[in-house]
């Protein structure tokens, strides 16, 4: 009995001295790293909670991606009409298409890609914060204001492309060429 007790205490001290387990009830539980900006007194009172959540909920790499591609004023943001390829963590592993719309809702941000596969139009809506989304790659940027990239689309949501396949092929023609 004493031997087992000693072994148990030795195990406890060994585990606590080398790798302090943040979750005391299991040593296989994975906890996300704490956010860089710790909770301030005004946050604890409830002021600006949603803005804090929008900044800290996605992991930092994903947060940087959202700030670069899906903000409203960033020069490298995704404009509707660009051709985008999304790589997923599972099958179907990749989907590419014309960006029809971006729905900006903070952590709930999503975008719709449209493509024509085997003579059938397919639209897929991806959520940016989903852990299944591995990579978002821009194949062809929509124009910013004339010049080499062409004039930008005059609409934020390009749902009219559903009824005009010729406009879709106009956009995709630039991809091959």
């Amino acid at each position, binding site marked *: 009995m004493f031997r087992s007790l000693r072994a148990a205490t030795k195990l406890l001290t060994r585990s606590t001295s080398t790798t302090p387990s943040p979750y005391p009830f299991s040593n296989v539980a994975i906890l996300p790293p704490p956010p860089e900006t710790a909770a301030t007194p005004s946050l604890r009172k409830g002021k600006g909670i949603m803005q804090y959540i929008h900044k800290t909920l996605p992991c930092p790499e994903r947060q940087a991606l959202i700030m670069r591609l899906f903000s409203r004023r960033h020069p490298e943001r995704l404009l509707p009409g660009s051709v985008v390829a999304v790589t997923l963590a599972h*099958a*179907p592993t990749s*989907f590419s298409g014309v960006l029809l719309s971006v729905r900006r809702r903070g952590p709930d941000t999503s975008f719709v890609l449209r493509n024509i*596969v*085997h*003579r*059938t*139009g*397919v*639209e*897929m*809506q*991806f*959520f940016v914060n*989903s*852990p*299944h989304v591995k990579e978002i790659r821009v194949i062809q940027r929509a124009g910013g204001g004339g010049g080499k990239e062409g004039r930008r689309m005059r609409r934020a949501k390009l749902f009219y492309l*559903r009824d005009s396949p010729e406009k879709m092929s106009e956009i995709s023609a630039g991809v091959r060429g």
Partner: protein
Amino acid sequence: MIGLKGTLNVIDNSGALLVECVNVLKQKVNNGWGGVGDEIVCVVKRARPVSPAAQASSTAVKVRKGDVRRAVIVRTKKAVRRPDGRMIRFDDNAAVLLNNKRDMLGTRIGGVVSADLRMKGWGKIVSIAPKVI
């Protein structure tokens, strides 16, 4: 969301071209809406003419206009949600004809099918489809 009177394109080589849904076979409910992977009872509205060889043979499956057959929905215009929140929507409604034992009538599929079929147990259709999205 395919219900009574909903029309679907047939994308296999059974001979039918357009079918109209008459009943959605879901457990516990006779009516209701069918989505991708649901079995439906349908009426063939338009079919390809039966070839003379098939007409002569007695074992070949002959699908004519007016037949009442079963089918499984493989594409819907209404968006379908995947488990991680993605939505997928096709430009038309499509189905593949079946017999009463849930086997396919045709031998080939010509077109995209939705990957939700795999989750509902139609692995055979998914394996012969040219593209699964």
